[in-house]
């Protein structure tokens, strides 16, 4: 980093909050994806004013700035692909206010998801999205990727809960979006533009979230299937059961085997397992709902259906599901985790299609995911040091995206485009939409300094 810029940054954040030492540069080169690139330096700002000063400086010197939370993104959003300054927001980790009467929580972007959960628990409230990375990921990151999670089918995603934001624009101006009122349609919905924008339009420095009372009872059931097609049909039919489960997850054969290696759960290793949860305020209510789900399972040739009986059983099952992708990492040296999402009517076809792609390219693909909202997580496992396998992985990825689009789906349900899916944007978005997106980016960031090189927007 240029000495003059370095001194300017140190003046803004203080010496202890600036680094360009090797060990920091290496760790900031990565997120949870396979992409990496060295930044020039990193800073830890402590408030919006410091963020504004940093962006103003970077904008005038044309230096890339990459906002970062916990760095657990799966598509390379936080990877500094064009070098530049990492803006690590983890020091901005205060929960500013919780107002139960107004049904909202105001937080700084560096607050870890699970810390907000802990703070809301004594009030009997929660912030629903529940991403699998919740123990580590920050709310700023959740907003940047519109994080989904296990409760998506019933409760929606992060975007459904963001009432307002404080954002610093690439030129250093600070603005507020949204309202503390529970609903507002005043002016353009700028909040929605920023949520899921992957840190390319502005840096979020404060978030106002809507929170829900937390249902106190849950029922959990699992079912095994000898064929993916049966599981797919079961998922589809749940919508006809009259209830929406609070979670409906699918686990494929490889995933089950990998989980067994990591835990003592001894899950049956079958072609597909469905894990369902229903929630409510009384045991009768949740059991009534789960029985409907169980009925659908049975009507679709489930081999075995079981309701979890103890708290520990339930805890273990969901912990196992949340660790699925990392557990699968034990199998090969590298992996790519996709999150293609399709309308529910096409989920059975998607499952079948994934199997076919795996056979066609002779590459291992493990499956699991949020069946409840059509969001599958096919994980391609390969030896990254073998060029042949890398080639096959890339071909399989491309086919996977084409399949999802052909089935009226989307490239990414919740992980974002980042770097990983950038080459496929035009598969999903028509030329007019792409043009509009590029213009929006240019309007916010004419010098293209904020997280450049992402989302396939550069031509």
């Amino acid at each position: 980093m240029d000495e003059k810029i370095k001194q300017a940054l140190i003046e803004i954040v203080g010496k202890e909050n600036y680094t360009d030492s090797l060990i920091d540069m290496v760790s900031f080169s990565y997120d949870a994806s396979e992409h990496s690139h060295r930044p020039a330096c990193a800073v830890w700002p402590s408030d919006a004013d410091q963020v504004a000063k940093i962006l103003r400086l970077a904008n005038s010197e044309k230096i890339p700035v990459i906002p970062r939370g916990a760095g657990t993104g799966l598509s390379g959003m936080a990877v500094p692909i064009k070098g530049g300054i990492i803006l690590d927001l983890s020091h901005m980790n205060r929960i500013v206010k919780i107002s139960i009467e107004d049904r909202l929580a105001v937080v700084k972007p560096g607050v870890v998801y699970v810390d907000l959960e802990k703070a809301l628990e004594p009030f009997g409230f929660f912030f629903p999205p529940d991403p699998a990375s919740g123990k580590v990921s920050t709310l700023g990151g959740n907003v940047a990727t519109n994080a989904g999670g296990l409760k998506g089918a019933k409760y929606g995603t992060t975007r459904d809960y963001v009432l307002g934001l404080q954002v610093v624009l690439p030129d250093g101006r600070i603005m507020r979006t949204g309202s503390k009122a529970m609903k507002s349609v005043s002016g353009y919905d700028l909040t929605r533009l920023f949520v899921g924008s992957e840190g390319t339009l502005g840096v979020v420095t404060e978030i106002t979230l809507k929170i829900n009372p937390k249902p106190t009872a849950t029922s959990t059931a699992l079912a095994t299937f000898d064929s993916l097609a049966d599981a797919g049909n079961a998922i589809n039919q749940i919508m006809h059961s009259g209830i929406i489960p609070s979670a409906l997850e699918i686990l494929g054969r490889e995933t089950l085997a990998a989980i067994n290696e990591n835990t003592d759960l001894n899950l049956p290793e079958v072609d597909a397992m469905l894990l369902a949860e229903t929630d409510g305020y009384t045991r009768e209510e949740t059991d009534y709902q789960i029985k409907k789900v169980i009925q659908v399972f049975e009507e679709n040739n489930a081999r075995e259906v079981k309701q979890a009986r103890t708290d520990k059983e339930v805890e273990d099952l969901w912990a196992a599901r949340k660790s699925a992708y990392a557990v699968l990492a034990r199998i090969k040296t590298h992996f790519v985790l996709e999150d293609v999402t399709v309308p529910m009517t096409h989920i059975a076809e998607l499952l079948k299609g994934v199997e076919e792609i795996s056979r066609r390219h002779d590459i291992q693909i493990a499956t699991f995911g949020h069946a409840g909202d059509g969001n599958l997580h096919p994980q391609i496992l390969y030896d990254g040091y073998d060029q042949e396998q890398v080639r096959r992985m890339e071909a399989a990825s491309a086919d996977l995206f084409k399949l999802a689009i052909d089935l009226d789906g989307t490239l990414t349900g919740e992980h974002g485009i980042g770097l990983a899916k950038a080459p496929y944007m035009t598969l999903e978005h028509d030329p007019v939409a792409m043009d509009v997106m590029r213009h929006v980016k240019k309007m916010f960031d004419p010098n293209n300094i904020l997280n450049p090189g992402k989302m396939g927007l550069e031509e």
Partner: protein
Amino acid sequence: MESKYEFEEKYREQILKCSRCGFCQAVCPVYGATLRPALNARGKMLLLKEVMDGKIGLDDQLIETLFQCTTCANCFHNCPSGVDVPEIIKAVRQDMVRAGSCHPAFEGMNEVLEKHTNIYAEDEPEDFERVRNRKAEYVYFIGCVGSYREDEPTMAALDLLDRLKVDYTLIDEVCCSGVLEDVGFSIKEHLAEKNMALILETGAGTVITGCPYCFRTFNDKLQYSRLREAGVKVVHITQFLQDFGFGVKTDKRVTYHDPCDLGRHCGIYEEPRNTIRKIATDFVEMPDNRENALCCGAGGGVRGAYAKNSIAMARRRLEQVEEVGAEIVLTECNSCVHNLANAKLRRQKFRVYSTTEFINELMEEAE
């Protein structure tokens, strides 16, 4: 496979299994206190991957992270990919020392233990008002921290053993030197020989120790196999005290901090609690307990090499003591006592004790 680094030969596959999920960030005490990704397990694995790929060298620049790890194993315990980070770190440190890159505090420790009997280079321990090296059923092995930094808990432990009429003796002990193996060096054979000779001279059938680290060293390390072959048992004081009744109680709210070296590393969780429940009617658990206990920050040499961060880690643990409203926090590792006591803020009114010290105080008051 041929590699210039031993850590690569032993652990390459494991290091590659790190999927960069970052789940370790949730439990790493160093990350929790500093919020610096380079210091967390994932950061360390990323560095090692680049070393293995030849992109960077294993040199001085890596000291700050590779020698700053308490080896608490909370990361390993929570790693879905099963990467044993502490074992990998210990192996890397050996390679780094061979390559000439080591934290000065540990180089210093290695030199000190060549010439001195303890890690602090102190010449004289407290005599604890007791004869050493006599014939007895038990040897009480104090450990360096207990001898030179936390003499009050040690004195209390000895007073307690006297009250319980245990036939024990102290010895002219020297550092077990187990810590050296974890920071890139090796156990000092001459120190191990001295300890074993003194222990065997006493004719004792069992060694009781208050230091979980010495406990592990005597039980696991090759250099102490002669002791085990001679049939001498080594127990930690919490295991020893389980069978005693003390006849005293407190109604103060008490909590227990699991030392990493006793808990996650040895699986000893219930014995200390059994003992505490005998004397405390209001016992509460901190949110992160047993295998999930949050490290106090002293281990792996971090208190010596990175004291400020070490105390910051202890401070984080003490927030949980406050959270559960405990008036007394007990633990049975002098390093934990030392770090937690140092980190306690003046406005925090709870007290930090070793379990033995607390029981002894209760018995003293009852007299």
